[in-house]
């Protein structure tokens, strides 16, 4: 069944599949994303890439990437050939970055397989950004998958490298390995208890960055945070991965401890907050995407604590994606202005939650 990528856009079946619904810490560790930054030798970086050269980079890479046999469902898409809604759908499914979707101009493209959750962005901040996305805590397997992809692209494309500095990148914060491991965590209890600031400090001391739902430069909403490595130079990819993964159990335990404490000492407050969020999602007539994510975050916590047994976690994860602007329009089957979107979102959430009783 060779579906075109547009079938994938048109369907909402697997929109939330990159989030974890099982595994040891799936209640807290939502998803892992790993990326590699690469540039093509002989071309200037993006800051000095004129229009003609940007086109040359894109066609140089298009030709080589299309030759790879990555997966049966692989596709190479130029952003210029997509509607802005389709581009946003790719962004909301974390298939492409916010920068590629919204901030950058010129000839950009993405080569991806949604079944393998692999994507290669062309003309992002670097000529190439390879990324793999997977639910929860399976970073070793994901890294292996990504390094394999890197080797296969590296056999076709001459990367810009340096004998001392390794892989050269537009921004010196990525030089060396070009590796960024980002683990998305759901930390509602730490936010409620205001201990999240301590997480930022602790992460900083461990050379890790904490960022928002969509990564670098994005707001943090719904108590979702991405923890990622800061250092990319001077250590092997395996050691960089270990630096991130060794911190995860600590953060998970921390969130669990606070959850336990809140549950024991502020049972009523907690229950009220979760049921109130559920009530609003179940009955509201107008809702922004930010409000939806905030409420779904509380409901997600309720599901993980067993307070809302009728709701499957898979549905909550799915609704987190489907309540975002482009997906609301996809579900409506047409473009909507802000206000109509907020109405359509509330309608959809009401309907889906009513189905579960």
């Amino acid at each position, binding site marked *: 069944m060779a579906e075109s990528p547009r079938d994938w856009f048109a369907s909402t079946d697997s929109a939330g599949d990159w989030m974890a619904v099982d595994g040891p810490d799936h209640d807290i560790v939502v998803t892992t994303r790993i990326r590699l930054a690469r540039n093509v030798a002989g071309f200037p970086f993006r800051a000095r890439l004129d229009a003609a050269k940007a086109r040359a980079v894109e066609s140089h890479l298009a030709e080589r990437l299309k030759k790879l046999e990555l997966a049966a469902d692989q596709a190479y898409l130029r952003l210029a050939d997509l509607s802005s809604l389709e581009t946003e759908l790719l962004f909301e499914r974390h298939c492409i970055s916010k920068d590629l979707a919204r901030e950058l101009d010129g000839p950009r493209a993405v080569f991806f397989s949604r079944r393998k959750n692999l994507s290669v962005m062309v003309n992002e901040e670097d000529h190439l950004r390879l990324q793999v996305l997977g639910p929860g805590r399976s970073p070793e397997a994901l890294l292996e998958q990504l390094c394999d992809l890197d080797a296969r692209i590296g056999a076709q494309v*001459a990367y810009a490298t340096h004998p001392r500095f390794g892989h050269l990148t537009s921004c010196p914060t990525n030089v060396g390995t070009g590796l960024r491991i980002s683990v998305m965590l759901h930390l509602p209890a730490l936010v409620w208890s205001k201990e999240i600031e301590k997480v930022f400090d602790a992460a900083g001391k461990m050379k890790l960055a904490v960022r928002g739902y969509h990564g670098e430069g994005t707001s943090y909403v719904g108590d979702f945070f991405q923890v990622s490595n800061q250092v990319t130079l001077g250590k092997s990819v395996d050691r960089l991965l270990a630096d991130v993964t060794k911190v995860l159990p600590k953060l998970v335990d921390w969130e669990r401890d606070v959850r336990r404490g809140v549950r024991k000492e502020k049972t009523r407050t907690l229950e009220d907050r979760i049921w109130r969020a559920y009530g609003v999602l179940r009955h509201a007539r107008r809702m922004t995407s930010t409000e939806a994510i905030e409420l779904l975050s509380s409901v997600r916590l309720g599901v993980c604590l067993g307070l809302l047994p009728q709701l499957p976690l898979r549905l909550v994860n799915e609704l987190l994606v489907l309540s975002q602007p482009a997906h609301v329009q996809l579900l409506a089957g047409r473009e909507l202005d802000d206000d109509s979107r907020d109405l359509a979102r509330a309608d959809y959430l009401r309907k889906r939650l009513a189905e579960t009783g």
Partner: protein
Amino acid sequence: MTEFCQRCQTEAAKVHVTEIDKDGGKVLLHLCEGCAKGHGLPASTPPTVLAVFKELVDKASTVSRTRDRQCPECGITFAEFKAKGRFGCAHDYDAFLARVVPLLERVHGASEHLGPGDAVAAAAVPDPSATASGAAPAAPAPVLPPPARKSAADQAAQELKRLRRELVRVVKSEAYEEAARLRDRIQALEKDLAKGFEVDG
């Protein structure tokens, strides 16, 4: 270790601020102390060892800042790089070597791709012979020197590394005279290295 300030992109971010953006979403800002002050926030901490060290390193590089050299390949100046935080081409890492090295030390705590214990993972950098066939027309295949060969430049780089570690140590112990002496040696060595790279092309 150090995250860049999201405002100026050049200083280390020391202050974490939560702000409400125009859409009503919360934004977490990582700012340096200077930008945090400009943001109407108190600086979080008294000057740290790192800040003092940075000041010394900055002073050390002011001498080479007398004229703002351009990258011969893409024409970018270091000031332009600093303003945007992005290099113009792969050559910039060598063109501004004397300033790139301390920058990388500050950001990554290292200025070499892999340490001695990481030889196995060197596979992360592709073997140039494997990429030769698919190389871009204008691209000289990246040449990685065989690890066994130790050039004078490598030795100088090693020495530079040692001196920088030493500098961190003496700054911590507040031995500022010793620090100044080390700074001068580092500076001289960096100049030599930069020159060497220019001659080598």
